[in-house]
């Protein structure tokens, strides 16, 4: 197995929002998607994921609904709300600025 990277503090919310921006997913689906997109470099700890989901639901960034999966199992699907989308844009923007600044410092130092 490839070496796993720990998630940078505070980035999980942004990643989840990003994944959900492509369409609704259940918790397990989010885990899979993150692993898949990061080419298994990122391992999402369920112990962080679910509290994060509930927190974001609480803040109104995402909404949840019970639905049936393709295999006819009941699962809770999350979708992005309008405020969630706005939050994603903001987070993406500040992430870009932050990485640019860090890169600048790292290169010029």
């Amino acid at each position, binding site marked *: 197995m490839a070496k796993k990277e720990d998630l940078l503090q505070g980035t999980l919310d942004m990643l989840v929002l990003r994944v959900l921006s492509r369409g609704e997913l259940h918790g*397990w689906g989010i885990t899979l998607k993150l692993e898949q997109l990061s080419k298994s470099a990122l391992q999402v*700890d369920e*112990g962080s994921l*679910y509290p994060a989901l*509930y*927190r974001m*639901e609480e803040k109104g960034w995402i909404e949840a609904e019970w639905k049936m999966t393709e295999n006819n199992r009941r*699962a*809770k699907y999350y979708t992005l709300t309008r405020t969630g989308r706005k939050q994603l844009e903001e987070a993406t923007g500040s992430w870009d600025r932050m990485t640019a600044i860090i890169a600048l410092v790292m290169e010029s130092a």
Partner: protein
Amino acid sequence: MNPLRQLFHRRKIEADMAEEMRFHLEQRMADQVADGLPPEEASFAAQRKFGNLASIQEQAREGRGWRWLGNFLRDLHLSGRSLLKSPGFTFLAILTLALGIGANTAMFSVLNTLLLKPLPYPDREQLDRIYRATPQNPDGNLAPADFLDLRRAQDGYGELAAYTAGDTSLAEPGRPAEMAYAARSTANLFALIGARPQLGRDFRPGEDTPGRDHVVILSRRAWLNRFGGRTDIIGRSIRVDGEPHQVIGVMPAAFNDWRSLGAIDFFRPLALSPVEAADRLSTVLRVVGRRAPARSPAETGGFIASFGARQAAAYPEANAESSWRAVPLQITAGGRGSLTVVPMLIGLSGFVLLIACSNLANLLLARTMARAREFAVRAALGASRTQLLRPLIAEALVLSLAAGVGALLAAQWFGDYLTVRSTGDNGEQVHFLLDWHVAGWALAASLGTALAFGLAPALFALRLDLNHTLKSGGRGTTGGRGHQRFRQALIIGQFALAMSLLAGAGLFIRGVYDLNNRRGGWESEHLLTGTILLPSAGYSDAEKITAFQRLALQRLTALPGVGSASLAAFTPFFSWPDSRKFLVEGRDRPPPGHEPAAVVNAVSPEYFDTVGTRILAGRAFNARDLAAAGQVFILGQGTARALFGSDNPVGRRLALAGDGKSQWGEIVGVVADVQPAAAETDSTVNQVYLPLAQEPRRSNEILVRTTGTATAPVADAIRATMAELDPDLPVRKLQTADTAINRANYQLGVLRDMLTTFALLGLGLASIGIYGVIARTMAQRTGEFAIRLALGASVPDITRLVLASGVKLALAGSLIGLLGAFGISRILAANFPGIHTSGNAILAGSTLLLVAVALVACWIPARRAGRVDVMTVLRAE
């Protein structure tokens, strides 16, 4: 998600969370089985990966808002359960608090009903009572002539109305006449305050002129009680004061809220005769005003004050010593004295509550200390301060909320009791209602006590010395010096408060007892009294009145069982409201209005004989002291001394000042002073007697000394005689003097009972408190006692030690409480100058009682301490 929904659908949410995670787990397992792992291993791996399910759920929960409320409710739930596990403690704590809060809430409901409840009149903030204060009476009323002057100038104020209240005879065809409490009011009174009859119509303008005034508006109470609530009463004729009057309206029940009007049975227009309209001396008119909306209270208040000053300058003989003021009507709603007495009662019930609270603090502290080790362990395991505090606060909250409910029940019961106890003679009642204000007060009191007194043990828990508590294996719970001192301070405080209550109540009980048994200057045995009122119709002039009085006295004296009968304006045992000013012949005339004053009574010749007032010098009045003969006076001893010092006043001459005639009359006698059994007036006023024949009046007191002890048949005979003389003549309150005194002071009795209740509550609660603290301290000092006993101390030594520690606290508290008792007696003395509220015996007795209670409360733990089994205790060390 809606946080409230979250709160109430918690089970559903938890289930959802579990299902979601189970789904996740199964998916991962399936994934790994697909990767080739054996199913059991996959299950293990998945669970390992997932970590502790419960902990994730916990974290997830923390992620939700309103968590604190959820936690809080759980804390309440838990503390409720833990309280149920120690029912003895819980019962005691709730009972203690419920009594404390209940007493306080009940008093608040009295305040609420009497003073706070808005009067049911529109724009009531514009309404004022107008008082004419004199040195004798700060809430005095206006004389008709002064009122008319004021009304002519009313544009400086707004609009004014007046009424006067008094006994009136009420007769219906075929029924014996009754006496009713009636008012004569200006026609605009109801319109001015904004009250409308519920039935019929209001007075019409101009109906308050002589000749047009034969109309009556009934109070709802009189309408129901006397006329059966019949609607066809409107338009019917009833006999008032011997003349037919037409009933035109019935006032609604809400009228009772303003006690001054609430006591009145019916209203007639105030039609002043020319003589009455010119009267500047009879201050009988109660004046109500509605400020013009454009004027400020300061403006109108200033106007009234300066108008009063103008009247004092223009008519000094009547108004020199008076000052006028306007008081918001709402403040006067509760009647006289309620402004100071009711807040005092709230304060005293607050004392009871404080005692209850410090009991609660003690109980909770003891409970917390018993769990000190548990707290230390939890703190050592990393529980945060909030986590430690929350259950403690929750417990206090549960206790006090339960107590709050109990308190409301207690207050309701007490309110009903008060309503019954304070019912007036004519069925007038005050209903002490529990409205939202009262419920809010109870809630605030509960929450306040929970916070204030739940916090003490909580703070103690915070300051726990972890190391020490854990090392000492649970014996570190003696609480150290600081806590000991804190609890002793609580006990001293309790006893101080209990002492204030007890001594205050004791002084008042004594004062009321003395008042009800005060017979200074007259004798009450076998004395019957009753009031008669001659209807104005048949007794329009002095001659007719005097003729009737002579006839009535003849008939009364001839009745079997009557030893002596007389008539007087007032009884010897109630204060005489008629105050006049005098000039002494041969002395310089004082500035008008500043002449010496005395209260006067007009009496028939046999009066002094009938009531048993001793004649000290000169003679009593006799049958020759008639209207046509020269004016004569008899002085009370105090008046004689005040005016003439040690000189003999008999033969000297006086004149009534202010009536314009200044006709000199001779002093024919001096009699002993009588002390009125009335709480509101100081008994040491100057008294002067006039012959009834020279002061004819339509309202008279019958005074009859019976020869035997059976007064009932004589009373029946008196009633029959009066009805025979005139069917329109009601005899009111024909009863023995003793009964009359007790009945008249019934409101004092209610107040006395309240004070007594508070004192007993305070005493009981304080004794529970000292018992609890001493018992606990003793339990903690068992080891010490065992050692003392082992070293040769005797059992009585130990008992004495324990008793002494309790008595010291009680004594210290009682001494501090003397200050409070002194304060209470001062407040009572200021409100009831007729009651003597002092007595060292009461103070000493209260102190002894408290110490005795402390002794008894400490006795049980002291005995237990003496019976310590030395070997067992020392081995356990």
